[in-house]
Every structure is written in structure tokens, then in C-alpha cells.
């Protein structure tokens, strides 16, 4: 083992402002994929217990494909697969859509578990009070469900942040990993740049968890 490498941290620290801007893009991408993921997951959860077999089939297929194939494969499918059908998505859009697809699958499974904790009699009570079935779902089931699945959702949010790093594989260059890779290609200071990126990702992940704690403390006081 011969160690004759001199670290040049100052080169890497000069790129810090750009990397912080990239971090912001990363957070934005993850938040967007999470918002759409939750909405789709709620729809999938409702579809799971729908009377129509087609809807049930769609929900089951979505969840099992999202959970049984790698996230990178899903992004490839959207980026290269749809490209072959002359639907050319930007790498950012393919990334967001891929992570959303993945998030929705995992969240739907969490929601389905959480739904078991909500007695079905509540829906019946809501219906007999005159709420439509959509109103009962939106006003009675969903608020309680979100409370039960809040911690799994926090985990999923952290995973969404980590998954955004896959964008670089389909050529995204303005998220944290993308910016890091761009600098890496210019300077070949791989270790320094990626070490800083790792620290930034760690801080973002911890920030998400801290924010979730604060939010839970504020939301679930009653």
C-alpha cells in the first residue's frame, strides 16, 4: 500500500457555492417527487379496494413493479424506453417521474398497512352522516391515515433525496451529484468533491428528519 496522493481540499471548497445551489435543486426535485408520490399513492390506495377489477389490477401492478425493480431501471425505462417511442423527456423530468413512480409504489403499500388501523365503521358513520364516498375518504380517512404513516413517509422522503443522485446516470447536471460529477470531470479530484457531496447529502437527510420532527410536534399535539 503506497500513499502518495496529496489532497487538494481548497479546489473542492471553491466549488461549494455551486454545490449548495445543486443541493437546493436536489431538495426541490425530491419534494416534488414526494408530493406527487403521496397524491398518486392515495389514489392507488383507494383503487386497491375499488369494486372495479381493472382499477384493482392497475394499483396492484403499479405497486409490485415499483417495489420489485430497481429505481435506476425505472428511470432508464422512462428516459431510454420512452425515447424509443419518440417521447423525449429531459433527464430531469425522467428523474422526477421515475422517483415519483417509485415513491408512489412504496407509499401505497405503507398507506395500505396504515388503513388497517382505521376502523371501517368510521367510513360508514361518515357516509350515514351524508358525506359522499370521496368526501368521507378525503375528510375522514386521509387525515388519520397521514398521521399514522407520518414516520414511514419521513423515511421515504429521505430515500427520495438519496434517489435523486441517480439523475447523474441519465445525464442530469444541475442536482448535487450532477454538479459534483461535472467538477469531477473537470479536475479529477474525485475523492474531495464526492466527500463534500456526501457531507451535504448527510446534512440534507438530517435536516429532513429534524424538520419532520418539528412538523410532527406541531401537527400531532392533540
Amino acid at each position, binding site marked *: 500500500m503506497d500513499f502518495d496522493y496529496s489532497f487538494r481540499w481548497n479546489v473542492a471548497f471553491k466549488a461549494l457555492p455551486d454545490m449548495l445551489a445543486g443541493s437546493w435543486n436536489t431538495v426541490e426535485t425530491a419534494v416534488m417527487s414526494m408530493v406527487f408520490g403521496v397524491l398518486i399513492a392515495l389514489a392507488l390506495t383507494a383503487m386497491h379496494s375499488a369494486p372495479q377489477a381493472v382499477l384493482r389490477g392497475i394499483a396492484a401492478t403499479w405497486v409490485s413493479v415499483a417495489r420489485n425493480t430497481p429505481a435506476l431501471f425505472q428511470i432508464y425505462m422512462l428516459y431510454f424506453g420512452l425515447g*424509443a417511442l419518440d417521447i423525449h423527456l429531459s433527464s430531469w423530468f425522467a428523474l422526477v417521474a421515475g422517483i415519483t413512480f417509485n415513491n408512489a409504489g412504496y407509499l401505497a403499500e405503507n398507506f395500505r398497512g396504515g388503513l388497517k388501523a382505521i376502523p371501517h365503521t368510521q367510513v360508514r358513520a361518515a357516509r350515514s352522516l351524508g358525506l359522499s364516498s370521496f368526501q368521507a375518504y378525503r375528510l375522514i380517512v386521509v387525515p388519520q391515515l397521514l398521521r399514522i404513516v407520518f414516520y414511514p413517509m419521513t423515511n421515504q422522503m429521505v430515500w427520495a433525496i438519496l434517489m435523486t443522485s441517480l439523475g447523474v446516470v441519465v445525464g442530469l447536471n444541475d442536482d448535487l451529484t450532477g454538479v459534483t460529477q461535472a467538477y469531477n470531470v473537470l479536475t479529477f479530484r474525485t475523492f474531495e468533491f464526492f466527500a463534500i457531496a456526501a457531507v451535504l447529502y448527510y446534512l440534507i437527510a438530517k435536516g429532513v428528519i429534524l424538520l419532520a420532527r418539528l412538523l410532527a410536534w406541531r401537527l400531532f399535539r392533540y
Partner: protein
Amino acid sequence: MFSTDFSASDLQFMLAGAWVTLRLTLWAMLIGTLSGALFGLLRATLPRATLPLGWLLDVFRSVPLLIQFVLFNSFNSIAGINWTPFAIGCLVLGIYCASYCTEVIRGGVLAVPLNVIRAARSLGLSYLQTLRYIVLPMAARVSFPGWVNVSLGVLKDTSLVLWIGIIELLRASQSIVTRIQEPILVLCIAGAMYYVMSWGMAALGCRVEQGWQEHD
């Protein structure tokens, strides 16, 4: 009407890739489970003393795997260790897997009621005997479903090793796509392979779990 350049040797190439994926998963799970069991036991029995270990393992769960691969790979060349990319892939995935297994096994050990341990101790079993015959078997049953989940996660995360130049299933299908330009077909085959592997592992886990439940 439907013609394709996808040949039998392409399929063979992809199957070889799938075999690399499986081998990576197995090695990672082996490293991860053994160290995860040790760390998990330590974390459960000595929570205060092993707090730094908990923080360290948490880092591997909070940094993207892709970046961990790049960091280990470049450290490998910086320090002149000269491991093969495959070994690095196994090591990184193994540590990543250990950080998850630790939590799973820690949860399982903590799920063993304290009264059961006290009962075992008062029956005259030594501390190690209690651990070996009472705590670990009970903890194993509780943590098994979580462990299967971790291995399914690792199977899917092996796809990221393509970044450090290992030709596994996804990379293999990508190079075939580059040649025959039929991404949908090739990627669907790759997806089906991943699906079958995941599904097989999940089914296997389910059977083991059911087999254990018979003795409860």
C-alpha cells in the same frame, strides 16, 4: 411485422449479468448479516457504549449509495489498495446492508420481553446460554421479515454498481441497447429478470417464515 435483433447470445449476456447481480447480493448479504447481527446485538445490549457505532452506521444510510461507491472506488486508487471493482461493490453494499441489518436485528433483540430473559436466568442459564438459546432464536423470528426486506432492497441497489464499471444486469442490458437500439424490449427483459429475482426471494422468505410459524 415484429422483428428484432435481440439474439440468444444477448440473452446469455444478460443472464450472466443477472448472475453477477445475484452474486453481489449474496456477498453483500453475507457481510451485512454477519456484521449486522453482531452490531445489532451490541446496540441492543449496550445502547450507551455503542452510540458512536450507531451514528457511524447512520451515515451509510444517509448518503446516497452511488456516492459511497465513488468514494470507496477513488479511495481504493488513492491508497493503492488495488481491489477489483467487484470486491469494492461487495464491500460497499455489505456495509450499507450491515447498517440496515443492525437496526433490524436490534429491533428483534429489543422485542424479546425482559421477563423471558429473567425467567431464563433464574432457571440457571448463564448469560451466554440465555443469549444463545432464548434471545437469538426469538429475535431471529421477529427480525426475519425485516431482513428479507433488506435483502430485497440490496438486490435492487446492486444496479448502482454500474457506475464503478461492473457489468451487472442493468449495465449488460444498456450495452445491448446501445448496439441494437431497441431499449423497450431489452429493458423489459431486464425488468422481468429483476422482478423474478425479487419475487423469488420474497417467496422463499415467505415459505421460511411460514415454516417457522408452525413451531410456535
